[in-house]
């Protein structure tokens, strides 16, 4: 039981806490809650003739996520095209996350085990792409992948293939592009986790009869798990909402949720559907985050 004086002090510090966080709360409500509220309201309105909205309540925006109205009969039909887009977004994002991990883990391990001086150089190299505009980098990948591009020139020059591989404007191209763009977001948290990892534990595990594979599975992966989770979130979340990469490398043929939302606001002139889709994306991301946080807390209760 805290004494009266202690209780007073606790209340006072709680009051001060609220007072001190007022500026942050104001910014948060203006920058995050406000716009979000507008999106929520728009998702329950009726689309206008030339875009924008009519102030008339309607749930059609939300219904339109999975169903679409037949142009002639005005009946709601299950929209296969929408489902394809959602599935493509989720599966491509999952694949990107997985592949970024498979490539990023050895990379992060390599950097973390270099001498400190060399390490700074490698980390610097990893962050260099961030200095260039995303659009430009994506067009660069486009240039590499296209029929007469670098990749095919090299492959054909080496005689590895007779005909150019037509990979541009496919899901594979989007997958390659997203992995490239988001890889540093996987490497950096992994590096931070591996850097904290006590390499003596490897010797201890080998000494206790663990094979190399068992050392990786039983010791390394569980201990660097917080880094794996952080990296996966950092790759999965922007992948799911990716817009530029599928636009440039998918050529408009391979739409992802981000492009689908854009479509509703521009050519589609269906703002409520666009708003509902945006909210859906947000909900999926939040659900993913919650699952991850749960999972992370359960596994890493050690200090």
């Amino acid at each position, binding site marked *: 039981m805290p004494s009266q004086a202690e209780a007073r002090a606790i209340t006072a510090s709680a009051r001060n806490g609220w007072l001190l966080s007022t500026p942050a709360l104001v910014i948060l409500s203006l920058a995050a809650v406000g716009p979000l509220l507008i999106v929520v309201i728009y998702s329950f309105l009726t689309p206008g003739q030339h875009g924008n909205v009519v102030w008339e309540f309607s749930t059609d925006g939300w219904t339109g996520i999975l169903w679409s109205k037949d142009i002639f009969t005005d009946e709601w039909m299950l929209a296969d095209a929408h489902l394809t887009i959602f599935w493509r977004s989720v599966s491509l994002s999952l694949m990107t996350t997985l592949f970024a991990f498979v490539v990023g883990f050895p990379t992060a391990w390599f950097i973390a085990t270099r001498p400190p001086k060399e390490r700074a150089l490698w980390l610097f190299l990893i962050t260099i792409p961030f200095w260039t505009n995303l659009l430009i980098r994506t067009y660069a990948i486009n240039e590499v992948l296209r029929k007469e591009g670098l990749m095919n020139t090299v492959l054909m020059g080496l005689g590895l293939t007779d005909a150019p591989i037509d990979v541009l404007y496919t899901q594979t191209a989007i997958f390659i592009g997203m992995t490239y763009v988001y890889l540093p977001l996987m490497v950096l948290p992994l590096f931070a986790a591996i850097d904290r990892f006590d390499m003596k*534990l490897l*010797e201890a595990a*080998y*000494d206790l*009869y*663990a094979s190399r594979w068992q050392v990786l599975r039983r010791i390394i992966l569980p*201990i660097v798990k917080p880094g794996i989770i952080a990296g996966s979130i950092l790759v999965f979340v922007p992948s799911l909402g990716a817009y530029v990469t599928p636009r440039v490398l998918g050529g408009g043929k391979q739409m992802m949720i981000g492009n689908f939302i854009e479509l509703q606001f521009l050519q589609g002139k269906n703002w409520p559907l666009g708003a509902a889709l945006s909210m859906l994306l947000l909900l999926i991301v939040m659900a993913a985050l919650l699952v991850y946080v749960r999972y992370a807390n359960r596994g890493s209760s*050690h200090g």
Partner: protein
Amino acid sequence: MTNPVTISARGVVKAFGQGPGAVRALDDVSLDIRKGEFFTLLGPSGCGKTTLLRLIAGFEMPSGGTILLDGADITDLPPNKRPVNTVFQSYALFPHLTVAENVAFGLQMLGKPAGEVRATTERMLALVKLEALASRKTAQLSGGQQQRVALARALAPQPKVLLLDEPLSALDLKLRKEMQVELKRLQHETGITFVFVTHDQEEALTMSDRIAVMNAGKIQQVGTAKEVYTQPKNRFVASFIGETNFLTGTARAGALELPTGDTIPVEGLKPVDGGKPVTVTVRPEQVRIGKPGVEGAKAKVAALVYFGTDTHCHLHLRDGTEVVVRLQSPASGDSGLAEGDEVSLGFAPGAAQVVED
């Protein structure tokens, strides 16, 4: 001790680096460690003792020579194929596992059935008196408790040899004394051969059955605590273990003639061919002080330092050479000597040892 040899190092060399810049951490080391022994590798930092331990564990490969375990060559076996476990200086406990899971790890990796793993783990936790903390994470334990977990974890797979790399160095003095007793008890109860690395000579003297004193990548002397203390083979061993005096002079039959012309009787000393000078070492507590004129070397009391149980008397020989004498303090605390007193200096019978340089 006539137990069979468990670990045998044969001409082991370990060099780090290449070419002329290479450092020889171990230089032609040969050593036999017997079954059930508490064997200590003692030496200053950088003497190669930890390198030798890591070679026995398999963390490093020797540049030359072989290591045998129960007569079988294990030189090329990786650590996970050697029935040898290590207690690390930093303990290296697995932070994501509980105390019990840490202890069970080795047994699980060996593929022991679950029932046996559980039973052995419980037995090991009881052995180090940690049953109550079995389900704690290791980060929540004190240094001494972590030490016990490390011991239980390394003992659980019942290795033929347990290697301990300065395991007590991170503990405070009181805990260190407790763990010294604890280690002896564990070794006694398990009967496992312990190879213990330390730079602390007192720790080595009190705990070991035998000690290998190492310096500059070489083994200087192997023997029991009494042997290395009372019969040091060379100057390094004499000065590294305990305090000592060195006197250089000419060997005569039964006496040492100092450069000052004085002679000190030394039982069994024989003249050396060519009259080459010899070095004799004698512990401070084995130096005897007599009245001036008694047989021995003339000396003058330069300083007296009172330590409670004993008094250190710094004597200067006629050529200025300093000899330290440790006198047990009498009840009054007064040693009966004063600075400037003239005395005669001799050695207790059998105390003086001729050492190699």
